[in-house]
């Protein structure tokens, strides 16, 4: 008994000692809730970056990095705030990777992170509202804002010589945010949006919605919905009534199910979704496979990059205090400097220690713009012969 007590006291002392020269990062994603299937690969990605840095022993003279997980639930703001409070007050984290969904991210940021002066890097919150939120320079994201997708979609459509479109969106935050940002970008580029109208998911019949879209007219129909929900119903009804035969599909619609449903009926339609063919993505897939999880899972790459950016900024600032390193995140993410791929975090830390610049590319080809959000890389697709083919990357 005495020995056991001694041993446990010794361990306690040792762990306290270890605490002093280690960095703790919080990973707050929705382990339960609507995106629970994505969360494990996101957390694994972030923790893989931490393990890589710990192993290299190059962070601020050999500090180790530990991860503390917390559940954001994706939808329950109260639970997410409580979890974030715990990370900061009880676990004493030095930075937060997260949160995931736009709603909880907003509430954690304004109610917990900003008051406590904590840095947050979200891998997956895409709401345009987060671009203009009051964040005291503490909030960054490795995911692009949906406003960016609106801009990219405008370019894709304009490049095909179409200047008049109608827009229908699924009636939720995602659909409305995307439709609004697209309509604004498209009109700014000199195009005409004949009608922006919502559709409800889960209806049996969309002929009335398509009727008013057809009446408004346009050369193509932008369907900002979900392929497993009302989006397909709209397309079906528009094809049946001959209202539109060219469609533009944003990320919620691009999937195998689309061509399974419609085959070559939608030939000549096109769209875009986040995606990159960068070298880093390939390397990351290999690393994830070796670590035993799926690196192609959405936002897993962005999570790795979010954790990596925090640690690189700490090295650049020479401090683990959020107030010190927050300002360095943009520096390490962007040019000029030595390009850094996933798996090269150890070398990046060395370069920074030697006072050199780095340009972190990472798994998702990171390029931070504006208020610290990813510029985003998109894969432009077109439908030919009933198949989705890659037109180019933007």
């Amino acid at each position, binding site marked *: 008994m005495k020995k056991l007590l001694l041993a446990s006291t010794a361990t306690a002392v040792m762990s306290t000692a270890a605490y002093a020269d280690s960095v703790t990062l919080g990973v707050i994603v929705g382990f339960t809730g609507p995106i629970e299937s994505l969360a494990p690969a996101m957390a694994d990605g972030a923790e893989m970056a931490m393990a890589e840095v710990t192993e290299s022993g190059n962070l601020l003279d050999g500090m180790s990095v530990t991860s503390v997980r917390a559940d954001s639930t994706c939808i329950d703001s109260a639970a997410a705030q409580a979890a974030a409070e715990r990370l900061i007050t009880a676990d004493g984290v030095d930075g937060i990777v997260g949160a995931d969904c736009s709603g909880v991210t907003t509430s954690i940021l304004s109610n917990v992170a900003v008051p406590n002066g904590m840095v947050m890097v979200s891998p997956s919150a895409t709401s345009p509202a987060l671009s203009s939120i009051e964040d005291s320079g503490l909030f960054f994201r490795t995911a692009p804002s949906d406003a960016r997708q609106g801009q990219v979609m405008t370019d894709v459509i304009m490049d095909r010589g179409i200047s008049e479109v109608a827009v229908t969106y699924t009636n939720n935050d995602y659909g409305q945010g995307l439709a609004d940002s697209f309509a604004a970008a498209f009109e700014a580029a000199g195009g005409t949006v004949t009608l922006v109208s919502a559709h409800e998911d889960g209806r049996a019949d969309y002929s009335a919605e398509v009727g*008013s879209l057809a009446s408004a007219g346009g050369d193509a129909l932008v369907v900002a919905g979900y392929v497993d929900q009302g989006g397909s119903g709209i397309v079906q009804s528009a094809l049946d009534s001959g209202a539109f035969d060219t469609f533009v599909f944003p990320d919620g619609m691009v999937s195998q199910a689309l061509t399974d449903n419609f085959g070559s009926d939608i030939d000549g339609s096109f769209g875009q979704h986040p995606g990159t063919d960068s070298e880093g993505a390939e390397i990351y897939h290999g690393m994830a496979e070796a670590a035993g999880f799926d690196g192609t899972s959405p936002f897993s790459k962005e999570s790795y990059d979010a954790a990596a950016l925090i640690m690189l900024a700490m090295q650049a600032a020479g401090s683990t205090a959020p107030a010190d390193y927050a300002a360095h995140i943009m520096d390490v993410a962007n040019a000029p400097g030595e390009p850094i791929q996933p798996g090269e975090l150890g070398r990046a830390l060395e370069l920074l220690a030697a006072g050199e610049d780095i340009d972190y590319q990472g798994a998702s080809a990171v390029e931070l713009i504006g208020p610290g959000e990813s510029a985003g890389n998109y894969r432009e697709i077109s439908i030919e012969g009933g198949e989705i083919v890659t037109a180019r990357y933007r």
Partner: protein
Amino acid sequence: MDFLNALVTLLNFVIIPATAYGAQLALGALGVTLIYGILRFSNFAHGDTMAFGAMVTILVTWFLQGAGVSLGPLPTALLALPVGIAATGLLLIGTDRAVYRFYRAQKAKPVIYVIASLGVMFIMNGIVRFIIGVDDQRFADGERFIISARTFREMTGLEEGLAFRTSQGITIVVAIIAVALLFWFLNRTRTGKSMRAFSDNEDLALLSGINPERVVLYTWLIVAALATTAGVLYGLDKSFKPFTYFQLLLPIFASAIVGGLGNPLGAILGGFVIAFSEITVTYAFRRVVSYLAPESWQPDGLLQLLSTDYKFAVSFAILLIVLLFRPTGIMKGKSI
């Protein structure tokens, strides 16, 4: 030419869809009105009865498709329909034996029946979701179009296309046949006459030797046939999803009440009134007007009275207006 284009647009987006939808509502409302007329209560389980019938038909259709049976250009579901009707008939008679007969023996008030039917609705709801799941099911096969928008444009050289789907054609034809059969049965056969007698005056009918249990049995069987047919046609034309059948309850009741509850002709009229107003009120008329109006009168707006989100509100509004001014419905029904 412009006039033809306007007419085709109107046909394509208003008249054809509204006629098909009206026929589906009319078949549903006929079932509701028969139960109200003969059994004297509002059957809230009607939407889910339709879902049950459609579900059985879909399962049999899948079986037939698996066995390689098909009707050529027509959907296989038509072949499976009789099985669906039989299964729904058994379910309804079983429900009557287990639930409604008890209240009939007690001479319960109509409101008690209504609440009992609410319970039956939830049970049927559960059965359907349990067996086939909550998702969309596709079971339509055969030719999709009688005439597609593209062929119509090529044929006529008009700017506007006209699409007429097989399912819409079948809906209209089947609805006409079903209504004709129903009226022949009610007006020409002995059982039909005894049902009408029972509906008009229960005591007098009993005194003249009509067997009430027999009347009830036939009513449920006819209701099963109407509900299953309506459910399958709706599923073929739109899509099968248990929740949408539950939502159909509102326009169906609106149709039956607007037409005059207990009056079969009224139910048909009510179905079309509701369908046409739902669609015309939420349709944007800009395209049609732009063909007809002279250059300087071209409209800027969509010319849409209500956004399509308010579709269900239209049934409610018509229901309220009719009940305020003609409590017994457009055709004379029983007042409620």
